[in-house]
């Protein structure tokens, strides 16, 4: 380190280089900060949803032992097989029976806090297992909404002592509520469920997949393998690229103006929702499909052509099977996006209050994201937790779909 060999390293030089290295470090730190910010926001989002959502999978339940042997409920075993068995139990006096059982267990005031439809859960248990009528069973029945709020220490003051008293006795507790996954929308957050919306989402996605996947793949094959270079092809390409970037709400307007004009009776049906989302998903599938097809090396095509395959055979016997994993990845990502889409479905009327799960592609339905939106609009505190729980379910579905896409990509990706 003699002076002669480093004559350029003057004091000014050293100072400058120090400054430059400091700037370098700062810059790198800012970059790291940007990433950390994004990841932190993601973490806050997920954690806050989970914290709220865990409560959403629970509800406040009163413990009511019912002894059917002494209660004297008379009903034929055959009636319980009928479709309207719950009504039959109602006329047989089940609501009164449940109420008196509740009075016995919780006292008169406590029994009043039972949810209005709590007896229905007892009725469903009996329909599922008629042998119950000859035995005794302890039910955990939903309290009404005001009493549930009282357990959280909110809502009406005068209910809180009673809630606390029953809670201390172990008769009034928040319990895991598996029915949340099996019920449908309701006005009372204590008895809402997500199954109706989930089923609506599944039906809608089936329609979307059935339309967007074949059309998207076939269009990608045409554009990549056969399309002549002319104005029409350019027009198709420009429309696909633009459709991929058109705001989703515009597709909702299209669905409203065109599909609902053709099928006015199917307002808020999964059929119309699926068709609207299919138009939105198709360009995504075309674009990812084209990339996957492009990645298949030309030598495959040349080889097949050389041994006498026709152009159609080349594509359907060789190119398409090789490109399929890539196409599937793109399709799953497109479907995941469609599953989380809300705005276009609001436009075509899938925001109605639907209290029963849809029984077909043409019956009124709602979907998960719209259900989340509707619940988030509710003023009742009980809905906040339910909304977060629904969000967790939606995110789990999206996570599974994206995970599947990543797995497919890693498992079948070929480097040629």
């Amino acid at each position, binding site marked *: 380190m003699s002076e002669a060999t480093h004559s350029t390293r003057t004091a000014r030089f050293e100072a400058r280089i120090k400054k430059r290295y400091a700037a370098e470090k700062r810059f790198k730190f800012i970059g790291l900060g940007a990433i950390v910010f994004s990841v932190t926001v993601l973490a806050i989002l997920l954690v806050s949803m989970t914290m709220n959502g865990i409560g959403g999978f629970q509800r406040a339940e009163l413990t009511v032992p019912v002894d059917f042997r002494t209660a004297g409920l008379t009903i034929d075993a055959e009636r319980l097989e009928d479709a309207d068995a719950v009504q039959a139990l109602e006329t047989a006096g089940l609501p009164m029976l449940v109420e008196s059982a509740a009075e016995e267990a919780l006292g008169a005031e406590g029994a009043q806090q039972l949810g209005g439809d709590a007896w229905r859960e007892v009725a469903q248990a009996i329909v599922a297992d008629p042998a119950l009528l000859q035995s005794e069973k302890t039910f955990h029945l939903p309290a009404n909404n005001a009493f549930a709020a009282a357990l959280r220490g909110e809502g009406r003051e005068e209910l809180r002592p009673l809630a606390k008293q029953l809670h201390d006795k172990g008769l009034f507790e928040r319990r895991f509520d598996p029915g949340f996954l099996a019920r449908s929308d309701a006005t009372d957050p204590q008895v809402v469920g997500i199954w109706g919306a989930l089923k609506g989402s599944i039906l809608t996605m089936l329609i979307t997949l059935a339309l967007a996947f074949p059309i998207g793949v076939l269009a990608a094959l045409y554009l990549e393998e056969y399309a002549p270079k002319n104005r029409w092809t350019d027009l198709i390409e420009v429309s696909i690229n633009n*459709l991929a970037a058109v705001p989703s709400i515009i597709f909702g307007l299209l669905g409203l103006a065109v599909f609902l004009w053709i099928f006015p009776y199917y307002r808020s049906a999964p059929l119309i929702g699926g068709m609207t989302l299919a138009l939105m998903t198709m360009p995504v599938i075309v674009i990812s499909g084209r990339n996957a097809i492009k990645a298949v090396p030309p030598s495959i095509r040349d080889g097949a052509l050389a041994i006498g395959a026709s152009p159609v055979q080349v594509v359907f016997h060789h190119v398409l099977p090789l490109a399929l994993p890539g196409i599937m990845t793109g399709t799953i990502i497109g479907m995941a996006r469609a599953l989380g889409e809300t705005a276009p479905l609001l436009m075509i009327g899938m925001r109605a209050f639907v209290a029963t799960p849809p029984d077909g592609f043409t019956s009124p339905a709602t979907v998960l994201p719209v259900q989340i939106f509707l619940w988030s609009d509710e003023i009742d505190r009980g809905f906040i937790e339910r909304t977060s729980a629904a969000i967790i379910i939606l995110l789990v579905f999206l996570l599974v779909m994206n995970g599947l896409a990543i797995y497919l990509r890693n498992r079948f990706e070929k480097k040629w």
Partner: protein
Amino acid sequence: MSPTILLLLALGLGLAGWLAARARAYGFKREVGSTRLAALPNYYAWYVALWVLIPIVVFIAAWSFIAPQMVTSSVLASPAAANLPEFGFLRNTMLNEAMAVATGQAQAVFNPQAEGLVEPYREAIGQSRMIGLAATLILGFMGGAWAFLRIRPDFAARTKVERVVMGILLLASLVAILTTLGILASLTFETIRFFGMVSPMDFLFGTHWGPDPMAATADPSRYGAIPLFWGTIFIGAIIAMIVAIPLGLMSAIYLTQYASPTWRAWLKPALEILAGVPTVVYGYFAALTVAPIVRDAAVAIGISNASSESALAAGVVMGVMIIPFVSSMADDSIAAVPQAMRDGSLAMGATTSETIKRVLVPAALPGIVAGIMLAISRAIGETMIVVMAAGAAANLTANPLEAMTTVTFQIVAMLTGEGSFDHPATLSAFALGFVLFLVTLGLNFIALRVVKRFREAYE
């Protein structure tokens, strides 16, 4: 459910035709012996199956459109329909009720007047089902028989089948053009109707927005969309971009230039998850978590009238949503800069950050700018975040703490309200959609051009 059953029937007939033709082709093979068939037996099978399926599918598509109208008109012609109310809501309700009972969806009619219509409906529906079934069978057999009789050992079945396949491929790619045309047509049509009631000048340059869906006539002074355009630009193009551009760009730079492969393998999927979160979840997050924080912060610095719905909360969350998008666009454009430019700069003694700031980013700038334009087009078209967090008041202000409304919010509000479809308030949603469509189209078009030219420059 009738079209579904017909389609299943068509599939069955197609399968029968397929099997029959295949058997016949194998028969030829045995008869002819040494001479070869003009195509593989499966192609004969597909040829017949296509001739069975295509006419039926075309028929079912047309029939499911015509049949309900035929049913309705034949019911209306029946004597029971004579004493129906002339027009309007009640008439439709009765018809729907009677139809629901006739098809078994409902147990009984609510309206006694509809009772008499049930029988005609049942008859008409039964009749139309019979016609549909018969036509399906006849068409299937005719198409199948014609094709079946045409197949001979020297019949070029493969070329015929492949021509149909090419036709189907072309049709599939035309769906994109049809969709674009459908969007343009529906938006233009309704927008023209709207402009027949409210002049474009009042709409585009008016500064007061407050449509009244219940008012009998349109008051043009209530349809000024400037506050909506301003709200959209302020939230989507200003606040969101102030968040998204620096964070997205720096994320991309860190990921591509600094992060070790292990970190990259973890951080990139995290950003992808951020991009995959549905907008309704972001909206909920904005309304439930971010908006109260913004309000409390505003109150803490001495602004007493801060509202719980603010442009700032919506804009910031929208910016976070856009970060992964900006980041991946910037990532692509930086990766497209030739390695030689980077190496040259480093060889001259520049530090990594100097190389990035002075060489890579300037070289990648066209791509980055195009990416930002796409990001803006996405932000201004975003709906759920503003619906849930930005508020409904059309304020023309530059204060980010006030509630502000956007084009997309008003489209949702106008179309999910109670107004009838002919009311200018409802139609204004289509005019707003038209403006939104044109703006995003313009942004996308320019951006894609820039990206294309930029790519060519380095290839």
